[in-house]
């Protein structure tokens, strides 16, 4: 009964993998604890909990220089300093001194109200001219310029100097938006930054750990000489592949729950789909990575090269498969690469299920590409491992 033999051999291989893994405490710690922890905490700490919102500009020290000293400029100061986005706004009298102090990390932006601000503002109602204020920023802080500009624009674009209390810029107003007399009613759910990050972490943690466990594991066995012994045993290649796959699927399941647990408990992440769907998707990504791992190990790659390849695999996926930037934003060759990578479809499915709440089975294209690439990678790896097994054993 060859099928039964393959099955029992696979179980034996998986059991052996578990035994070896259990004996290596640092591997257990890194694979199941540190990697999920590093990635989840860095996302959560950077973007904040899913349930909470924070203003990126609220606690940035800034200076307000009023060269106009009119009712309009005073009302603008009151509007900004009383808002939830400019908690650390202080006043300074001299524009040049304030600008000269930028870059020294005492404050990071200077808002200057030029002379004639009120006159232009009052005149703008009749002659369609626009008043201006000048924002000097410390652009040694990446992203600060665009963030402060955006927030300040939200406050001043509908500023009315003739009323004492300006309408507070609420989340609703920001969502609705307005250009002149045209209101933009924005539909579609905005997702907390952490929930978007959670889809990235779930995918990247699996790829990062699984590739090393499969490709690195086989390379180590080859370098230690145990691979040659495995090849000489009566077990066939398919048993080895299945056994290692079974072992790594268990680890991947544990990692999925670790990331989800950390995300939900620590950062109030809220997936918009069932745990089962997340697990299935996560394991499909793990299987794709395993297929790739077997393929790489069939090419007789050394352990150090595996680690370096892993680093570039993760970076490539960050760049091209929609993890960091949407693949819709890529153009030319980058767009072609993005559309050719099966991982792009897996990440897309991850977002559409976890964020939007689409049923997994409705994503037929994504699922087809994923399953086809898993089958393709496994078959190709099997053929290569079978063809080169003697070369790999020496």
């Amino acid at each position, binding site marked *: 009964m060859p099928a039964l033999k393959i099955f029992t051999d696979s179980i034996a291989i998986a059991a052996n993998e578990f035994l070896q893994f259990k004996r290596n405490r640092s591997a257990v710690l890194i694979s199941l604890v540190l990697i999920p922890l590093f990635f989840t905490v860095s996302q959560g700490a950077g973007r904040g909990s899913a349930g909470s919102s924070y203003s990126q500009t609220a606690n940035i020290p800034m200076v307000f220089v009023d060269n106009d000293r009119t009712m309009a400029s005073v009302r603008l100061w009151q509007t900004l300093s009383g808002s939830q986005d400019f908690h650390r706004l202080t006043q300074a009298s001299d524009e040049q001194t304030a600008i000269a102090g930028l*870059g020294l990390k005492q404050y990071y932006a200077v808002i200057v109200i030029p002379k004639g601000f009120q006159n232009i503002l009052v005149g703008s109602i009749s002659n369609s001219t626009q008043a201006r204020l000048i924002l000097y*920023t410390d652009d040694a802080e990446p992203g600060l310029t665009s963030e402060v500009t955006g927030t300040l624009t939200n406050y001043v674009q509908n500023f009315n100097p003739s009323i004492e209390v300006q309408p507070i810029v609420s989340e609703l107003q920001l969502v609705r*938006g307005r250009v002149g007399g045209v209101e933009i*009613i924005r539909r579609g759910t905005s*997702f907390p930054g952490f929930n978007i990050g959670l889809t990235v972490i779930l995918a990247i943690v699996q790829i990062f750990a699984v590739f090393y466990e499969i490709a690195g594991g086989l390379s180590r066995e080859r370098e230690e000489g145990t691979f040659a012994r495995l090849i000489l045993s009566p077990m066939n290649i398919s048993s080895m592949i299945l056994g290692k796959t079974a072992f790594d699927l268990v680890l991947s399941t544990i990692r999925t729950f670790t990331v989800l647990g950390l995300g939900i408990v620590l950062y109030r992440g809220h997936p918009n789909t069932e745990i089962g769907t997340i697990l299935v998707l996560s394991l499909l990504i793990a299987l794709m990575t395993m297929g790739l791992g077997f393929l790489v190990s069939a090419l007789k790659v050394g352990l150090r090269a595996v680690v370096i390849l892993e680093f570039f695999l993760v970076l490539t996926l960050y760049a091209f498969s929609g993890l960091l930037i949407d693949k819709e934003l890529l153009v030319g060759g980058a767009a072609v690469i993005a559309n050719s990578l099966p991982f792009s479809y897996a990440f897309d499915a991850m977002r559409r299920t976890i*964020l939007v709440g689409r049923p997994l089975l409705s994503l037929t294209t994504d699922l087809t590409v994923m399953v086809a690439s898993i089958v393709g990678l496994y078959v190709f790896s099997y053929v290569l491992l079978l063809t080169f097994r003697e070369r790999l054993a020496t």
Partner: protein
Amino acid sequence: MIPLIRDTASIAGKELKQLSRDPLALVLTIMFPILLIGNFIVIGSAFRATSHDIPAVVANLDDSPASAELLNKLTTSRLIHVTQVVQTQAQAFRVVDAGAAVGAVVIPAGFGIGLARGHTYVVAQLDFSKATSAQIMSGEVRLAIRQVLEEAKHGELNFQVQLATVEVITIPISGRPPTGDIIMPGFLGIIVTLGAFDDTVNAISRERDRGTFPRLILTPVSMFSIYSGKMAATVVLTVLRTGLMLLILSLNGLVVRGSLLLVFLTTLLIAMFTLSLGLVISSRIRSSSTLTVLEIAMTFPLFSLAGTGQSPLLLAPGGKAIALALPWSYGNDALRRIIYLGLGLPAVGGDLLLLLICSLILMPVAIRLSTRTM
């Protein structure tokens, strides 16, 4: 003192010789920054690109010249690509729900009449699971409306609407455009960090893997000389890496406004701190590949938390606290201030001193731990 310097120089020479004899390690030392920067350039160019093809769908339910003009602005946009013009709002929303478009713009019936009266609206349905694309599309819809209104002021269509009352003029103090690159100094910092982690693996763990570390310790050379020799080798490699990176970044438009010497000093201090930390970790984790995986895993959070791509000031409170506790944040900050603002030692001295102190604390700890776990 002289034997100490001599021994240190011997160890450093040995390290560099071993590296030159290992083609893979040598290639990686040189190729690593180039490949890494290649990836980042792709990411950066996607953000800075002046044209995209973000798929969008439009439903124009109005037949006024104003709605036709808005539709025209949307279809000729360089950022969004109107793939379909549909007849109903429901059809437009369905396209977005199916994932075939990032957003739908619905121009309602009566748009033109409302505009003439001074108040009207459009509906934008956006797929925020593609957050960046959705934000860009939202901005493009606003821009299209603004253009219609501005052109109308000078044309035949004179709408009773007023544009924003106050305009914000942004002037970054470096003199670079507000949309200029923001993360090149961060690249330099992260590559120096990765390189120094790689040096740790080469310096200790691979010696352990080969069994040469015990032999090295049994020589008359002191432990301090061994570690300072390895540090000296890292200093040489970091100078090479920094020079190479600056060359690549300059070809990509980076202008270093400050002292080049100070840039090299900062990268050296980042590398020394990273190596010191790596040596501490390597005293507990013996396998070179496990150590490399751990160090790479540690590097990824540094992208988001140590000021590489985003200022720590913009992070959530928890992230800000972590960033403040990471010495790399200070190194990256110093690099940005030297490169972008042209500031000198008085301005970044505190950051550099902190890196130096951290290295000086960690190095003896590494030596002590290595001796104990021999």
